[in-house]
């Protein structure tokens, strides 16, 4: 029921007692301000952690060879393990249904030049699947194709910053770039969300690199993504299986941790997910604590307010106010003060987050913000909080005997 007169009464009571309303509102504003900042910062931290994994596919598994540390099957410790094309083929064929994308990598560091501009870059020689594994976003031209591999084509795909460095006066696409004395045609330019380093890379077909720089079939690393339908446990047992099979393949002791290294991103991202969950719970607990402190604060002030207004409430009762009308009045007043003050705190908090948000990047806080659902939730919480805070004092107010109130002179 909407009772305009009741609202008039309440707004008059609030506005004619500004100091009182301000004091009770301040506690709530402050609590909500802290709550908002806390949530925003926690969100910012979570954003940062998530961005660490944005660069690569989350279901990635990286496989790298190393040195043996244990003697096994007649081999001495300290033997270098070298992956070759046949190992790539083995992984691709034997685990075909479990593998989504797979690529080998050969690393080189070469100086590159175009006309007078010169600089040194990391080169990654890869399979076409690499594009999906690394989330490379080609925005000009194309990526490396299967045909390039067959032909060992002398082509490269360069990062956005490579183009910026070397091609100061022209666009790179279609031009020839000199890598260690050999001319390669630029067929594509890409972006990458992984940061500046990722955009200072040059990609070329793996067959080209193997032929030109060593004339062998060595590979430095195999990256693959597992079938995304696998859950965490399946993914983990898959990477364990890979480890076991590869150790057998290279005659490495099952206990040797260094010779074949399989890193499953699912583990890392699960760890981070757990951490952000814990962080979220922590923030929620602290935030709720702050909110409860705010509610207790306003309840306290409302009790004081009722005491201060004892006489007024007594007069109202003598003039015919029912206990219900007194309870409604006090509670609604509390709800309105809480809701308005809380909303002010929320807006203030969001404003502060907006203002200082960008300067917090170096503290691992990216884009701190609070989302709409939280705002709606907070508003509902505030209204309930106001009602709770107002209820006890309102009940007390309703019990005031007019005779006692009026004697109080």
């Amino acid at each position: 029921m909407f009772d305009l007169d009741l609202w008039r009464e309440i707004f008059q009571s609030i506005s004619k007692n500004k100091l009182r309303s301000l004091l009770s509102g301040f506690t709530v504003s402050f609590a909500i301000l802290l709550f908002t900042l806390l949530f925003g910062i926690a969100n910012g931290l979570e954003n940062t952690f998530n961005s660490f994994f944005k660069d690569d596919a989350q279901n990635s598994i990286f496989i790298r060879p190393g040195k043996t540390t244990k003697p096994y099957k007649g081999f001495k410790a300290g033997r270098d393990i070298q992956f070759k094309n046949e190992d790539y083929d083995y992984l691709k064929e034997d685990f075909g249904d479990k593998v989504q994308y797979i690529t080998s990598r050969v690393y080189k560091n070469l100086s590159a030049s175009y006309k007078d501009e010169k600089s040194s870059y990391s080169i990654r020689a890869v399979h076409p699947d690499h594009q999906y594994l690394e989330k490379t976003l080609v925005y000009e031209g194309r990526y490396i194709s299967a045909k390039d591999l067959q032909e060992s084509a002398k082509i490269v795909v360069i990062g956005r910053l490579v183009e910026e460095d070397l091609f100061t006066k022209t666009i790179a696409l279609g031009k020839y770039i000199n890598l260690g004395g050999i001319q390669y045609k630029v067929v594509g330019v890409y972006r990458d969300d992984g940061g500046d380093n990722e955009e200072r890379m040059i990609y070329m077909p793996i067959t080209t690199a193997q032929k030109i720089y060593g004339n062998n079939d060595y590979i430095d690393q195999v990256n693959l993504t597992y079938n995304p339908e696998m859950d965490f446990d399946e993914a983990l047992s898959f990477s364990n299986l890979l480890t076991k099979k590869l150790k057998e393949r290279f005659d490495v002791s099952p206990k040797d941790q260094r010779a074949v290294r399989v890193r499953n991103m699912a583990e890392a991202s699960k760890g981070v997910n757990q951490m952000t969950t814990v962080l979220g719970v922590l923030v929620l607990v602290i935030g709720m604590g702050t909110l409860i402190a705010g509610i207790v604060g306003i309840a306290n002030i409302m009790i004081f307010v009722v005491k201060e207004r004892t006489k007024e409430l007594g007069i109202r009762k003598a003039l015919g106010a029912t206990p219900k009308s007194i309870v409604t009045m006090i509670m609604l007043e509390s709800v309105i003060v809480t809701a308005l003050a809380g909303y002010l705190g929320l807006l203030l908090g969001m404003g502060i987050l907006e203002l200082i948000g960008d300067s917090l990047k170096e503290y691992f806080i990216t884009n701190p913000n609070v989302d709409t659902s939280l705002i709606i939730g907070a508003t509902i919480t505030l209204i309930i909080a106001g009602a709770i805070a107002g209820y006890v004092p309102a009940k007390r107010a309703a019990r005031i005997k007019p005779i006692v109130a009026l004697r109080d002179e």
Partner: protein
Amino acid sequence: MLEIKKLHKSYPIGKDSLHVLKGIDLSVQAGELVAIMGSSGSGKSTLLNIIGMLDEADEGDYILDDVPIKNLNEKKAALYRNKFLGFIFQSFNLITYKNALENVSLPLYYQGMGRKERQEKAMFHLGKVGLKDWAAHLPNELSGGQKQRVAIARALAAQPKLLLADEPTGALDTTTSYEIMDFIQELNDEGKTILIVTHEEDIANMCKRIVRLKDGVIMEDEFVNQVRASQYV
């Protein structure tokens, strides 16, 4: 109009109890102007509180306008107070943050009357006490006499059957007291039933009947020749 029979009231003080009213019998007809007198502790305020439904008797009957007033819950008491009674207090008891008009219209608000009608009625009653021009003023901008007149207007606004005044002139100087009494007499002339608690003889003599209380019983109940306050104003 008002019937009280064998009314008893005691207040607990520690283990003992203080017997304040020891069997009061009182009957008031419509149109009377009654002064209830007595020294402090005589029980006159307790009696008024019971009549005003601000307090409840332990024993005895209280019938107001043919309605027995007994075992009232808070809601009913509020309703009856609003319908039957108008209060005038020694300390005026106006709500400080409301202006004169708002104060007068408050009992009408609790009657559930619409805003416009409420304001019209309140203005009418303010006019009756001669404070139409002061409608928008807050209580602290008014003199003592004006405050009491606002309070009277407020008591009248709900058109009660019975006006209860607890030392209505207690906080006022003699001249202002007589002005207020003159006004109360005028109201009585119009037919209002009014009960005044006072300990001042001259005020009591301006009523038509004086009931004297001592130690919780009625000592004396006499009709007097009313002294008109208008001759002093």
